[in-house]
């Protein structure tokens, strides 16, 4: 178990966006966090990565209590997230997007006296990551000019550049075409071999295919938990999630 949360809660004013959530994310597993719109999935991500400070509960990452830690420190400890709305650096090339992620771990982030060519040292690793997500021929294209699906895989490549121990992906396949979905699913399966993945996903087929464990969230609370089969057969989940008993 690499990441765990106990009694996590978040209030916005007098609205409980997340309440009493317990979550355990394990090494080498893909864990899905699903639930209807507004269930609080993104908020849970924000809490785990410390982009928001929980109003109650504790979070432990690799044995360290990170409840009071700043988000950049959490990232440096190896918990890296992607965003629901694709987060690339739009006016940087694909290559530069990945290199920015590589700069800090390679000690090339603070030199203000060195030329940009100092970053060429990162090209080899960057190109590996870029080709792993199939963006090689778009290497020098500005991120803003990529199609939506390609922005998403670029984001995955930059996230992987940090070699994170825990990967949090917020709807990595939203808005993608069928082919891309299969590609990204393959990538996620692959990276989860030696790290933990927690992902929010609406596409239940993907969840069924690649996720080992599913947590269902509804109105900020955990409704059900288990493997896909168990969860999908739970009548409460069927009602809450699909709005109907059958589906």
């Amino acid at each position, binding site marked *: 178990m690499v990441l765990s949360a106990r009694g996590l809660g978040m209030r916005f004013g007098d609205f409980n966006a997340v309440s009493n959530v317990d979550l355990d994310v394990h090494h080498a597993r893909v864990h899905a966090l699903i639930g209807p719109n507004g269930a609080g999935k993104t908020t849970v991500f924000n809490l785990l*990565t410390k*982009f928001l400070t929980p109003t109650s509960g504790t979070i432990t990452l690799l044995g360290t209590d990170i409840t009071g830690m*700043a*988000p*950049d*420190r959490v*990232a*440096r400890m190896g918990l*890296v*997230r*992607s*965003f629901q709305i694709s*987060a*690339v*650096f*739009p*006016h*940087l090339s694909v290559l*530069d997007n990945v*290199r*920015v*992620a590589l*700069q*800090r*771990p390679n000690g*090339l*982030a*603070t*030199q*203000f*006296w*060195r*030329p*940009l060519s*100092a*970053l060429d040292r990162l090209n080899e690793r960057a190109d590996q990551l870029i080709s792993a997500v199939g963006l090689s021929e*778009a290497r*020098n*294209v*500005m991120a803003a*000019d990529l199609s939506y699906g390609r922005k998403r895989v670029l984001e995955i490549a*930059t996230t992987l550049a*940090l070699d994170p121990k825990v990967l949090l992906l917020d709807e990595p396949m939203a808005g993608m075409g069928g082919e891309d979905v299969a590609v990204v699913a393959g990538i996620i399966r692959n990276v989860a071999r030696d790290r933990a993945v927690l992902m929010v996903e609406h596409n239940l087929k993907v969840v069924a295919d690649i996720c080992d464990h599913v947590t269902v969230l509804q109105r900020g609370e955990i409704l059900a938990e288990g493997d896909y089969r168990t969860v999908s057969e739970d009548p409460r989940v069927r009602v809450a999630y699909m709005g109907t008993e059958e589906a």
Partner: protein
Amino acid sequence: MADMAETTETGGRTEAHSAMASSIRLGFLLVGLAALAVAPAFLYPVFLMKLLCFALFACAFNLLIGYTGLLSFGHAAFFGGAAYFTAHAVKEWHWTPELGVLFGVFGAAVLGLVIGFFAIRRQGIYFAMITLALSQMFYFFCLQAEFTKGEDGIQGVPRGHLFGLVDLSVSTNMYYFTLAVFVIGLLIIWRFVNSPFGMILKSIRENEQRAVSLGYSVQYYKLGAFVMSAALAGLAGGVKALVFQFATLTDVTWQMSGEVILMTLLGGIGTLIGPVFGAGLVVTLQNYLATSDFPVTIVTGVVFMACVLLFRRGVVGEFYASRLGRRLGFEHRR
């Protein structure tokens, strides 16, 4: 590398294009430098030196707003503060001019560290207000402090001998010293912007949240840019004190902070040489108006409004974004 000249999937931006833009840029730069080198033969040197000091000041300011998106309303503290520090070191301690200027730079950097430390956590208008408030505190400090000589300022600052050798009281010597400082200042800015650190700054400006999620402590990077900007503003201020041989309260007022914003906006935020043009415009205008009956502030105000309405990106930014500029391979986004 066979695809170097090929059009990318967007059809517009190619490496060949930006190569053309950089050679054009280099050409302009050389012409500009040559013009500045011979300028004292045609124009009043003190006017030129004033122009260079303000141009460097504006470029330093632009380093902050253009590359981190932070609008400081307190840069006069660094400019005017450094003028005081340099003037004091040279006049009272009899330091050589280059050491005096370095002392000014150092003082401005320390001030930048303090003001930046308090301001950097805030964004937008709050950031601007905090920098304004702290620089006003510095203004009152300068008004009260012993060494600044209150309303009179530090007068009769000797220009001294550069490295103990070159007599800077000779106007041409002083001019070329100022020009050299200006060029070095621009080179520093250029290097800073095009460095690994500058890359991170750019990424923070592009998407701060993403930069945080990649583990960057964005406040430190912003603070770094703030201190660098303050130090370079100090470089300009220190040299200005030598040029005019005095340091007064004028350079630490909030109006001076406003003026540098004006120069930068006029020239074009986020372009390396835009602020040079902006500063040239404002200084020239002030110079002509100083001898006429027109109230300077009203006219600069009107010019400012006209420019903001006509050239939203500033003069240079507008050129980069124009069809001609884009065809030549310049890029301007904003």
